[in-house]
């Protein structure tokens, strides 16, 4: 009796062995008897080990029906010589049997490390990134570095090629169809992988080789422990402080004040909100924001309070003085590239319409994005405005001036954002302006931003 193994919608199906025999040869036992199809089933991620054991124990009697991903011959590889730390990272990953995590700070060239590995392996590769912008950026980097026009899954496109780029979301949705098409998975910003849904992107693939890239592997929910199983162990870690390639930079905080009209609306809203919470806390001890949000679903008064809270955020976000401060920053640095981060899409568009400067938003299409980034790099566009989409790893040319206009920040976001300014090009120091409303919640958020690792080496000044 022959034993066969095949790929089925993100899982492996094994046919032709009894439970006893299977238990004899597999330890730990990875199989589950599936009575629906009268076969044994396991996650596709176990393909490498399952194939090895079955070949070893059954020899000729084992037929591997799992699709073999194609091999690739890169026609024109044009990559930067790896720096010594990048070469170390590549070697460390290979020593970890081609499964592992590389932890490097943003700006230290993780992309180059991944491209070096792809160039050497010459295997069908899927690159998974958190947002569409990054996906397109990988597409560009692969074309420029490896001379291949990669397939794209995501952003309403579905084109599968031996080298394909995608997002975590699309990868999780489609992996049951494409899980047998790749030998190497590259997870960019890999700390995103261990959610209940996204992890299917790793579990449902047969790829024996896996590379995870991140600057911040730790997750608040402890999910990073699973990266070991889903990708592999930490193969290489470069501390932010050890990096010799990053430019020093200042943070300058600029406090602005709301206009009288804004202040009136802001205070009015604050008062109503305070009153509401005061009254509610008399009825129920510890009544908080969460209670309000659930009450807002049943009670129109609570909903109005919720709206007032949104209004406060919006007044902070769109305070008129921010625009004037921005104007002054442009005046101070007329010949420098300035990168502006906003908290919301609306604010980004508002600034763009005011200063007639290009934006990169979540919906910006590939062609425009490329034109904008190229124009920014060449100096054709002196200003680039972005909302959170540029938070992670998006390659922005070596801007020296950054402006953060509010926006809710977590420690990780701050590391990533500052990373944009830390590109190892040029020698002069970068400046990051933080424009925050005085006496509002933005000040608190700004303090929180400062706790991140990236801030440790920065000096703070006040204007």
């Amino acid at each position, binding site marked *: 009796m022959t034993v066969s193994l095949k790929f*089925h*919608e*993100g*899982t492996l199906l094994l046919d032709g062995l009894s439970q006893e025999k299977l238990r004899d040869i597999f330890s730990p036992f990875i199989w*589950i008897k*599936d*009575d*629906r*199809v*009268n076969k044994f*089933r*396991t*996650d596709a991620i176990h393909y490498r080990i399952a194939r090895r054991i079955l070949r070893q124990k059954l020899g000729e009697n084992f037929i591997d029906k799992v699709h073999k991903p194609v091999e690739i011959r890169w026609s024109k590889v044009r990559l930067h010589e790896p720096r010594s730390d990048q070469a170390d990272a590549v070697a460390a990953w290979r020593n970890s049997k081609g499964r592992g995590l590389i932890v490097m700070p943003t700006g230290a060239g993780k992309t180059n490390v991944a491209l070096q590995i792809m160039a050497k392996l010459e295997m069908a590769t899927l690159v998974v990134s958190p947002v569409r912008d990054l996906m397109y950026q990988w597409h560009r980097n692969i074309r420029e570095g490896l001379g291949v026009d990669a397939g794209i899954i995501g952003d309403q496109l579905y084109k599968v090629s031996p080298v394909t780029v995608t997002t975590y979301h699309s990868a*999780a949705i489609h992996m*049951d169809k494409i899980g047998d098409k790749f030998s190497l998975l590259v997870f960019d910003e890999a700390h995103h992988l261990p959610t209940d*849904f996204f992890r*299917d992107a790793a*579990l*449902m693939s047969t790829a024996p080789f896996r590379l995870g890239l991140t600057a911040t592997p730790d997750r608040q929910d402890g999910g990073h422990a699973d990266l070991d199983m889903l990708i592999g162990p930490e193969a290489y870690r470069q501390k932010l402080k050890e990096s010799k390639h990053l430019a020093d930079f200042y943070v300058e905080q600029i406090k602005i004040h709301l206009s009288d009209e804004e202040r009136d609306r802001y205070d009015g809203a604050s008062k109503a909100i305070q009153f509401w919470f005061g009254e509610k806390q008399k009825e129920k001890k510890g009544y908080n924001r969460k209670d309000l949000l659930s009450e*807002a*679903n*049943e*009670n*129109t008064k609570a*909903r109005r309070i919720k709206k007032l809270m949104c209004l406060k955020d919006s007044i902070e976000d769109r305070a008129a003085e921010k625009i*004037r401060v921005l*104007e002054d920053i*442009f*005046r101070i640095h*007329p010949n420098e590239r300035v990168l502006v981060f906003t908290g919301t*899409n609306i604010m980004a*568009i508002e600034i*763009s*319409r*005011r*200063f*007639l*400067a*290009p934006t990169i*938003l979540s*919906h910006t*299409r590939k*062609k*425009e994005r490329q*034109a*904008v980034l190229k*124009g920014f790099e060449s100096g*054709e*566009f*002196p*200003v680039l405005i972005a909302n959170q989409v540029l938070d992670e790893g998006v390659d922005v040319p070596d801007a020296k001036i950054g402006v953060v206009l509010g926006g809710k920040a977590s420690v990780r976001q701050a590391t990533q954002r500052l990373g944009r300014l830390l590109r190892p090009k040029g020698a002069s120091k970068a400046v990051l302006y933080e424009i925050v409303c005085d006496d509002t919640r933005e000040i608190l958020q700004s303090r929180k931003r400062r706790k991140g690792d990236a801030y440790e080496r920065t000096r703070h000044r006040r204007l």
Partner: protein
Amino acid sequence: MLTSEHAIVDYDFRSRVAKPDRLTRMNHGRYVDLAEKMLIIYRDGAGLTRRELHRRVEYLFDDEPCNTRRISSFCKLLDDAGEYYPDGGQKAARMRLKVFRLAAKKHPLVERKQTETLFGALENEESVVKQEIADDLGLSWQEIDDLLYADVISFHRLKTPPNYATAADLLSHYNVAQTQAALYKAQSAAITADDDFKTILRHVKLCGLLHEISRLDSSTYRIQLDGPASILRNTARYGVRLAKLLPALLTCVGWTFTANVKTPWKTTARLDLSPNSGLRSHLNAPPAFDSSIEESFAEKFGEERDGWKLIREGAILHKHQKTFVPDFVFRRVDGQEMFFEIVGFWTPEYLKAKLDTLKIFSNRNILLAVCENEGALEVFKEWTDNIVPYKTGIKLAPVLEKLNSFVMSSAESR
């Protein structure tokens, strides 16, 4: 369809039951009025942006104590049923690049020149630059500004209003859509079915779900549904497929449906449905008969003849993922069954597939009616003697003869 961000589900912790948001005439009578007003907003709203339409709907709900998800769900359903002008994405993007390139040479655009300083002379005022660009492009600045971000989804303009005929239509769509949204979190489901199980099974397969079938009594079956990876871990990844099944299921009769839904607290809750749940499908009910040959045979035979009851699609034969529902079952009072399959119009592929299926179930009593044309008869005769040939309609006499000889032979073997 809604997204899971729209879902409003009430979980009863004691009974572990999930209840998707449901608007009923009894408790939500005022929603008929609200729905009518929403339809009016959209019908009168051609040319308005998505954002403006949503604002108006939100305003309508100002005094209605409800989850804001309900409001955004209505907006989503109305948006989906209507049509917006194509975003002219290329046009807006081209305009942006053109305008920003022209403006870049004048950077920064200041509100007012600093006339007191030397630098002021080098500065460019926003309003002046904008006017220059407008003149350059031969448009008014207002026209340029309107187009500049016209591709942002909330600035899209409504072209055709949604096609809901009545307020009741919109409300029943809402109820189905909310139940579907609750099913996105489903890890598995089970359907019991009698009359329509063949149709239900066909839809199950179309949705790409795996099934396990068990017989509850002579005419009722239980279909357990989930996906390939469900056996490895609890996963809601097949919830969308279950949600897609719902509108088709609602066109059928004689079923119950129970899904296991993941709650936000990582426990599970039951979601129960049946044709009496008050949900109405927007799809049409399936036709009662596959072909006229079957229909006329059923008419000729009647409900019962010579001690045999005739039941249309009264049984599922199943082995793992292979299922076969014969067109009819002849059932005697003592429980003896003979399955009856009519092999009608075909292609060679159809014939081969049918034969392959029949071979899997060769241990069952299956009587075939095979059309005499085009060599089909020969193909099946090679494999079984249990055949009644027919030309234009199936005659009763040869069928009854086969049935009776079946009773005799099974009596002998006993």
